[in-house]
């Protein structure tokens, strides 16, 4: 029994300590009730099925739910890893879309930061021109600086919204696919 539970716990290393504890406790309870009912350890192990197969299920399920809750890049990458590893249908498509969205968004953020940087440089230029007495150039610099940096700021804010829309929604879509496919279709439920 302990061998089985240890193997299960080891295979669950990607889950949080809390989840791991809960899951192992479920199987421990199953063993205890089975033994009380007069079954042998061997019988119970045979009827439960391969612990590493079970762990795959939990890992995929756990990764999906964490990603859905946080929508963070790191958790989502974990989930995509799980989708690809367990060959869930549509996994490759979702992963490519996600990476496309991710790289587009990173480029858009870089552009916005570039605009803000350009605007700040123009403001610096304006200050320099004022100190040198070139009032007209100074005003030109202020104008250019304000346009560039406000444009960059607006772009940045828009990017955050876009990020939530694209990357966040893709996470949701991936989550739905995982929910539908993993438990019902990809899990090896048959007796070994």
């Amino acid at each position: 029994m302990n061998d089985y539970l240890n193997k299960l716990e080891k295979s669950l290393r990607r889950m949080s300590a809390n989840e791991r504890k809960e899951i192992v406790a479920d199987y421990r309870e199953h063993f205890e009730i089975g033994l009380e009912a007069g079954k042998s350890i061997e019988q119970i192990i045979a009827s439960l099925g391969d612990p590493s197969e079970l762990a795959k299920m939990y890992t995929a399920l756990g990764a999906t739910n964490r990603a859905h809750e946080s929508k963070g890049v790191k958790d989502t990458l974990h989930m995509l890893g799980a989708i690809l590893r367990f060959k869930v249908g549509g996994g490759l498509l979702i992963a490519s879309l996600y990476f496309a969205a991710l790289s587009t968004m990173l480029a858009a953020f870089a552009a916005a930061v570039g605009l803000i940087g350009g605007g700040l440089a123009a403001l610096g230029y304006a200050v320099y021109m004022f100190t040198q007495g070139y009032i007209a150039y100074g005003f030109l610099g202020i104008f250019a600086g304000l346009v560039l940096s406000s444009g960059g700021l607006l772009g940045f804010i828009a990017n955050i919204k876009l990020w939530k829309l694209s990357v966040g929604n893709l996470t949701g879509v991936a989550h739905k696919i995982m929910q539908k496919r993993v438990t019902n279709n990809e899990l090896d439920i048959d007796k070994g």
Partner: protein
Amino acid sequence: MNTQFKKGVLNLCVLTLLKKKDAYGYDLAEKMAQSIEIAEGTLYPLLRKLKLDGLCETYLSERSAGPPRKYYKLTQKGIDAQRVLRDEWKTFSTNVNELMEENDDE
């Protein structure tokens, strides 16, 4: 028994058992294994998913002897989900049976 058949009705079976009465994992696993021959261990990921989806809840029930057992109880959402799945299953199985009767001469 055909694995694809089983996969389609797993949720319906568990939800139906739980609709009748609250149960602990072992009990559900035994019943499921008897009627549709699944590896009993796969029931626990399924129960965990039902809980994460808000279709059931768990509570610990103390016993006079031995450690408490974890019971599963359907939520209203779970009861509704069972009803939808049950109706779909009834329509589906009736249609398949009719098709078989009309066309399978054996």
